[in-house]
């Protein structure tokens, strides 16, 4: 379980990016964190992952095996000289997993074993995303966090990716959190949405969020 109580966050004594955020995520949830650009979604994820500490408030996270799939283009340097196999092998060693077969298993699970000797920078967006998911699966995570999984990947890869995430959530009991821009997949897959607006956030059902979103857009169009 993840529990955020009255969380405030600001970078280096600046303005609060997140204010009084309260959030409880239970085992088996599939949460899509949605909101405008710059609303603080990625900061919220970094707080949950423990990469940032809150300026105020408390965060408890009982998940021991956390994995994170970053946005490909945000994080990776395409010129970085590393092969797919090396990425997974280093991760295996860091997690102290003894057997190398797990690399093969995870790459095969994502249908990208044939890419093992390719440089990560030479992969397409979809291939890279699959490799990063294969890496995340190596530690048998109980919490899997994605930062905009559909960014930079083609429609076909998106159609393959989301059912796979959904399957992990429903059949393998993995709690999933995604920072999401793709409304279609967010509404279709998540059990709850967490809407971040102006540094504050609230839970809503996918249907309620859709109604809220559509009426806001309709209001905007009507005003024009």
């Amino acid at each position: 379980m993840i529990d955020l109580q009255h969380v405030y966050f600001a970078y280096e004594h600046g303005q609060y990016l997140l204010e009084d955020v309260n959030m409880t995520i239970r085992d088996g949830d599939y949460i899509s964190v949605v909101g405008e650009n710059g609303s603080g979604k990625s900061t919220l994820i970094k707080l949950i992952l423990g990469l940032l500490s809150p300026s105020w408030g408390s965060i408890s996270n009982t998940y021991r095996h956390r994995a994170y799939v970053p946005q490909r283009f945000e994080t990776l340097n395409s010129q970085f000289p590393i092969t797919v196999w090396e990425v997974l092998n280093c991760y295996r060693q860091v997690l102290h997993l003894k057997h190398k077969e797990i690399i093969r298993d995870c790459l095969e699970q994502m249908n990208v074993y044939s890419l093992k000797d390719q440089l990560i920078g030479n992969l397409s967006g979809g291939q890279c995303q699959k490799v990063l998911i294969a890496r995340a699966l190596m530690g048998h995570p109980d919490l899997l966090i994605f930062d905009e999984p559909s960014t930079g990947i083609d429609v076909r890869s998106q159609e393959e990716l989301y059912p796979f995430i959904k399957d992990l959530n429903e059949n393998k009991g993995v709690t999933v959190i995604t920072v999401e821009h793709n409304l279609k997949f967010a509404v279709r897959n998540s059990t709850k949405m967490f809407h971040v607006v102006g540094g504050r956030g609230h839970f809503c059902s996918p249907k309620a969020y859709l109604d809220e979103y559509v009426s806001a857009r309709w209001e905007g169009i009507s005003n024009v």
Partner: protein
Amino acid sequence: MFEYAFMQNAFIVALLISIVCPLIGMFLVLRRYSMIGDALSHASLAGVAVGLLFDWNPVLSAFGLTSFFGILIEVLRRRFRRYAELILVIILSLSVGIAITIISAGLVHTNVESFLFGSILTVSTGDVYSVVALSVISLAVIARLYPQLVMLTFDEDGAQIAGVRSKLINYIFAVLVAATISVSIRIVGILVISSLIALPVATALQLRKGFRRTLIYSVVFSFIDILSGLLLSYYIDAAPGGVTALTSVAMLLLVIAYKECVFSLQEKRRRP
């Protein structure tokens, strides 16, 4: 040439430098920390000056003080993230200030020039022992922390989430950079150490291979650069630091030219 003891010492030290420098350089270059290497190599002059002042082994005193400055940069970089370059300037001013004050006040009665430009003649047996000890320890630490260092370099957030203690490893890495610089001072000199750390890696990166193979190529290029620099400097009687820097640049240009030739040949073949 190798019948001379000083040449044997120089060769042993050169061999170790050609392994340690690109190993550390690979992580520095890929983390975009090349300027930290440059700042620390200049900071090592303060360590040399303090060592000469108190009649300590200059390689070890350089290691001690450069490690201190390396850790200080890491601490300040964490506290003042927005002013990373400014921190390097402050450390550079402090360390070079200490060195120039000690040297210009006439407190040191040794030729400091050999530390700035490098020298084959001045590598003593004591230096060889300290260089061997520092190199072996550095190589052992790199081998032990290899997966953590690669992960931190490739994806720092992912590494932290996987349990890599990034803070501790960054401090250890700062000490490793200091060790690398200290072992290189005698042969290549303070002024061009950073070129030896970055250029073989830059050359190997042109080949677009995986991490381990790029690392191996960097060591090979570094070995060729240093050895040819050492031999040329012996024959033309120049400081090895300058000649090694020139051979490193020449090697980089050669590899870029080779790559371009291969690329244009492939393009020609592809044309209908």
